[in-house]
Every structure is written in structure tokens, then in C-alpha cells.
């Protein structure tokens, strides 16, 4: 097979400077570097993280973007639709400060009359386009656009998200509400984390009888649905930021406690921990070097999942009437208020609804991304 002639010089033993055979071809990374690298590749999670950063920033700074107070009532300027400088002349965007509706009637006159009646008989500020004058047998259709700002004498004002039924600036209220929703959720998630980690960690680390009793308690508590506890708690502690937070944390810490306990129990008996113990590592060293780094990821992920859960629950409570009381606003109360007038002033519900949805989606995507990033099994 090998009849080709090769230079004899090639058949001399290879000179090797140093042994490269044991060289590891890829750079070694710490757990966090490795996770970070994987997270950076996850476009969805990155977008989610940016959305959260922007929304958090807006929740803090948004209310100061204009001069209206979140509780500044003024019935004369109530129910103004959204109007934004620069976007007010773009037809397809809902920022013109006008109400838009189509009217249908037997004759053109009737349709126009309907429109005028609907919009406060303020003909001056109604712009009508005839879609169908009814001459071909069908009903007459008129497209009417009503400049609410002009009608109420606020031509020079701009309410970016409009105003609510009491004339309060919806932009300020939405961001203020976001702030409060985020505050409640983050606080509740933090308390859950502290209690859960402590409970789960103690239960697992001490093991034996301590673990036994602590687990019995959990087994009984876990049966009580969150919904029930929260409703009962809100009934005792009249609704407020603090009481809602407490209600959310009463059983909220249990999942965290279970996860931490499971993980610590698993780690405790794993070879690398046993090996460390065999080598004479002290308890504190084992906790700091072996256990903490291995549960941190889990804590972060689980907290990231708790926050949207808490946001949801707060909004849910507000929606069924057990939430924050006016004038304090949260995303939940805003959606609830908006829902009452959804058919006529949909913008009141749509903006807080969009923001709460964005927050929930972003948190879930980021949490998913973190979970994938922390899972070393995924390493390629």
C-alpha cells in the first residue's frame, strides 16, 4: 500500500521540547465566568434583562418626566386620551389625543347626528369623514374623530398615557404603580428567600430529628393553597403595601425552603464534599466552599421566578377588590380601574396591562436563561 517514496530525513525520531500532550486545549473557566458566557449567548434573556432595566428605570424616574402628581385630581381634564408631542400627527399611532369611532345609521344625516351627540355636541372639534353616504342601499357610515383636548380647552397640554376618570395623569400613575408593584414583589421575594434559605439550610444541614420535625411542619403548610392564605391574611390585615407583602410571604417561602433542603441534602453526600471532609476541611469551610457556591445559582433562579409570581398575586388581589386602596396605585389597581371603563377608554387598561405583561415575560425569560446558564450539564 505504501510504495510512495518518502524523504529519509522524515524518519528520524521527533525532538520534543516539552511535553504538550497533557495540555488542556480550552481555557479553564470558573463557574460564574462559564455561566456568564452562556447567558451572554442567550439573546432572549439579554433582551429580557434590558426590558427589566428599562422598566425599573422608568418606574423610578418616569413620574418625574412631567409635572403632574400621581394623585393630582382635576375633573375638568378627566378621560383625556393619550397625546404625545411629535407623535400627535401620525395617524396610525394612538397618541393623537382624539377619540375615534365609526357611526352607522339609515341616512348620512342620522349618522352625523349620532356622532355629534356622542361627542358632547361639540361640532367644532369633530372631524368627520364619510365612508359610505348610504346612497347605494346600505347604511350610511361616518368616521368621526373627536379632539378631546380641544374640547376641554387643554390644547397645549400633553398627557402621554391620557388621564383617568378623576383627571389624574395616567403616565405618572402607571410608573408610580409599577414602582409599587415591583417594590412589593421584590420585598416579598427577598423575605421568601431569607426565610426559605435559612429554614431549608438548617433543616438539611442538621438533618436527623431537626430535619424530621421541620419537614412535618412543611408538609402540613404546603397543603394550604397560597390563594387561601393570602385572602385570609388580607381580610385580617386591611389591604396595604406591607400587609400584602406579609400575606405573600406567609407561605411563599416554602418552595425555596424545599429546594434548598433538597439541594443541600444532595450535596452533603456527594463525593466532592465527602472528599473535602476526608481531607480535614472544617464545617465552615465546607459550607463556604462547597455548599454556598452550589446553591447560589438555585437561590438566584428561584428568586427570579418568585418575583413575577408576587407581581401576579398583587395584581390579582387588586383585581378582585382585595388590593391596595386608593389613592395608592399599583399595576393591579390600575388594570382594575381601567377594566371598569374598558369599552369607552381602553387606553386606561391597555398601558398598565402591557407593562405588567412585559415585566412578567421578562422575568420569566431571564429566569429561564439563568437556569440554563447555571446548569453545568449544558456545557458544550
Amino acid at each position, binding site marked *: 500500500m505504501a510504495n510512495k517514496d518518502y524523504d529519509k530525513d522524515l524518519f528520524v525520531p521527533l525532538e520534543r521540547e516539552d511535553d504538550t500532550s497533557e495540555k488542556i486545549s480550552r481555557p479553564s473557566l470558573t463557574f460564574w465566568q462559564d455561566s456568564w458566557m452562556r447567558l451572554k449567548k442567550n439573546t432572549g434573556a439579554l433582551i429580557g434583562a434590558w426590558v427589566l432595566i428599562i422598566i425599573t428605570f422608568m418606574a423610578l424616574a418616569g413620574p418625574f418626566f412631567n409635572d403632574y402628581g400621581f394623585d393630582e385630581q382635576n375633573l375638568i381634564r378627566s378621560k383625556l386620551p393619550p397625546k404625545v408631542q411629535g407623535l400627535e400627527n401620525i395617524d396610525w399611532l394612538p397618541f393623537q389625543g382624539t377619540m375615534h369611532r365609526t357611526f352607522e345609521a339609515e341616512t348620512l344625516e342620522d349618522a352625523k347626528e349620532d356622532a355629534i351627540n356622542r361627542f358632547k355636541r361639540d361640532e367644532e372639534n369633530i372631524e368627520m369623514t364619510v365612508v359610505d353616504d348610504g346612497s347605494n342601499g346600505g347604511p350610511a357610515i361616518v368616521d368621526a374623530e373627536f379632539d378631546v383636548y380641544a374640547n376641554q380647552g387643554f390644547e397645549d397640554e400633553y398627557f402621554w398615557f391620557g388621564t383617568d376618570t378623576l383627571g389624574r395623569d395616567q403616565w405618572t400613575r402607571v410608573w408610580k404603580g409599577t414602582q409599587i408593584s415591583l417594590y412589593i414583589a421584590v420585598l416579598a421575594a427577598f423575605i421568601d428567600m431569607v426565610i426559605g434559605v435559612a429554614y431549608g439550610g438548617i433543616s438539611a444541614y442538621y438533618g436527623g430529628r431537626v430535619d424530621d420535625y421541620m419537614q412535618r411542619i412543611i408538609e402540613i403548610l404546603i397543603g394550604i*393553597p397560597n390563594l387561601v392564605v393570602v385572602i385570609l391574611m388580607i381580610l385580617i390585615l386591611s389591604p396595604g403595601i406591607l400587609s400584602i407583602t406579609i400575606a405573600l410571604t406567609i407561605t411563599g417561602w416554602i418552595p425555596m425552603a424545599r429546594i434548598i433542603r433538597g439541594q443541600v441534602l444532595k450535596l452533603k453526600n456527594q463525593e466532592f464534599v465527602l472528599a473535602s471532609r476526608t481531607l480535614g476541611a472544617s464545617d465552615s469551610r465546607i459550607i463556604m466552599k462547597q455548599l454556598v457556591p452550589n446553591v447560589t445559582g438555585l437561590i438566584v433562579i428561584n428568586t427570579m421566578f418568585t418575583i413575577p409570581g408576587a407581581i401576579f398575586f398583587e395584581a390579582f388581589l387588586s383585581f*378582585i*377588590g382585595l388590593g391596595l386602596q386608593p389613592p395608592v396605585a399599583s399595576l393591579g389597581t390600575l388594570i382594575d380601574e381601567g377594566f371598569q371603563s374598558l369599552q369607552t377608554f381602553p387606553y386606561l387598561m391597555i398601558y398598565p396591562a402591557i407593562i405588567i405583561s412585559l415585566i412578567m415575560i421578562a422575568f420569566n425569560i431571564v429566569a*429561564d436563561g439563568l437556569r440554563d446558564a447555571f446548569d453545568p450539564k449544558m456545557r458544550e
Partner: protein
Amino acid sequence: MARYIFQRIVYMFITMLLIATFSFFLMKLLPGSPLMMEDKLTEEQAVIIKEKYGLNDPVPVQYVNYLANLAQGDLGISFQQDNRGVTKILIERAGPSIQLGAQALIFGLAFGLLLGIFAALYHNSPIDYGSTFLAVIGKSIPSFVFAGLLQYYIGVKLGWLPVAFWEGFEYTIMPTIALAMFPIAIAARFMRTEMLEVLGSDFITTARAKGVNRLGVLFKHGLRNALIPLVTIIGPMAIALLTGNLVIENIFAIPGIGDTFVQAVMTNDFPIIMGFTLITGFLFIFIILIVDLLYGVIDPRIRLAGGEK
């Protein structure tokens, strides 16, 4: 196994007792009572009413009576609805709630599982990404937000479906979809993960090495194994349906238990709130128990671990 079941049932009763006790003393603490309009009542009327609600007995006696009533399914009397029994009111209103819940569960499970199967089959394809995205959306957007948007765009703007009320099948479509979003999301996510794991396991390779065709591998070998842990998502799903029912019924003006509850919250009708809370709690605890026991029955590996027959 028998010991396990027994233990679980004991825990279930402890939890129920805890909830019942908790809510009883809560009732005692609450500012509202049948005597809320006290000023307007004469002394005699007050005595009569107190007698009627058993409020003259010492608290421990009231507690025992309360538990005894509870054991017989008596949840007390509504403050607002003409002194009618809470149990009776809740039973009357159960129909639409059960129908809505069942429809959402069936639709959500069926659609979600299918979505998950396709996502796993076409792993890392647009179908997979699409279904994963849908699952994130469904899991994230609160059902009442979704219901509100649905109602506005489909009901009001487009006029395709009735905006509210409960007068026939087409009235159930929007609430069912709104309520099914979460079940769809978790079922799809669950199925995708399980299916991917099962399809990657050795016995699937064995089946393929036998010459079993694609569908056979998928359904005969894959699906059954992937479905075994399905019971684990029934718990979260049940909570989601129960929670969702409250707001969805309210939004679509469906005369069910959830709507009754929200009305009760608004009118401070505590017996109804308590009754609902207790029923929800018990229902939930019961579902968890069933799920745990089912898990043992379905998976032959667990069934046997409990004791060789």
C-alpha cells in the same frame, strides 16, 4: 404503600383542620358581623339575630359547633343574600364554574401537550421556538389581563364573540381560552422537556434498532413514558384554574362561584368568603393527595417499590 396512604390522609386532615380553625378565629376577629348595622337594630332584634347565628354561646362551644356543621357540609349563612345557606349558594353557582374549568382543562391540556410534542419532535426548529415563546407568554401574562384584552379586541372591536354572560356555547369560548392559557403553557413546556428526555433515552434507541417506525417510537415508547410525570403538573394547573376562575368569571359576568366570591368581597359577605376559601382549600388539598397517590399507581417502578405483590 398502605401506610403511606394512611399517613397522607392524616396529613390531609391536619391541614384541613388547620385551615378551618384558622378561618373560624379569623371570623371572630373580623370587624364585620351580621350585626354590622347594629345602630338600626333594636335590642331585641340584636338578641334574636345573635341567637340565630349562635353568637351567644361561649367561643369554644361555637368552635365545636362550627366544626360539627362543617363536617356536615354546612358553611353557615350568608350575610347579604337573604340569609341563605352558603353551601346552598355555592352549590347553585357551581355549574358554570365546573363547566368553564373542565373546558379550560381539556382544551389547555390537549392543545398544550400537542404543542409540546411537536416542539420536541422538531427540536430547535421554528416550531420549537414558536411553542416555547407561546409557553412563556401563556405563563407570564396574567389571565385577567389576557381576558380583558381578548374581551376588548375580539368581543368589542371585532364583535366576533359575545362580550359577556353565560347563555350558550359561544359565550364560553373566550373565557375558556383566557382560562386555558396557563394550562397550555405549562402542559406545552412539560411535554417538551419530558419528550426530549425520553426520546434521548437508551430504550428509544433500542426500539429504533428493532426497526420500529417513527410513529411507533413516538407513541408506543415515547409518549407513555413522557406522560407518566404528567400528574406532577396537575397541582399547579388546578391552582391556576381555581384562581383564574375568580377573575375570569368576574370579567365575563359568568354566574359561577368565582363571580359570587368577588361580589362577596365587595359587599363584605364574610361567610361566603370563608366558605369559598374553605372549599377551595379542601379541594386543593384533596387534589394534591389524589395526585400523589396516582403517581404511585401509574408508574410501575414506583408501584413496585412500595411492596412486591
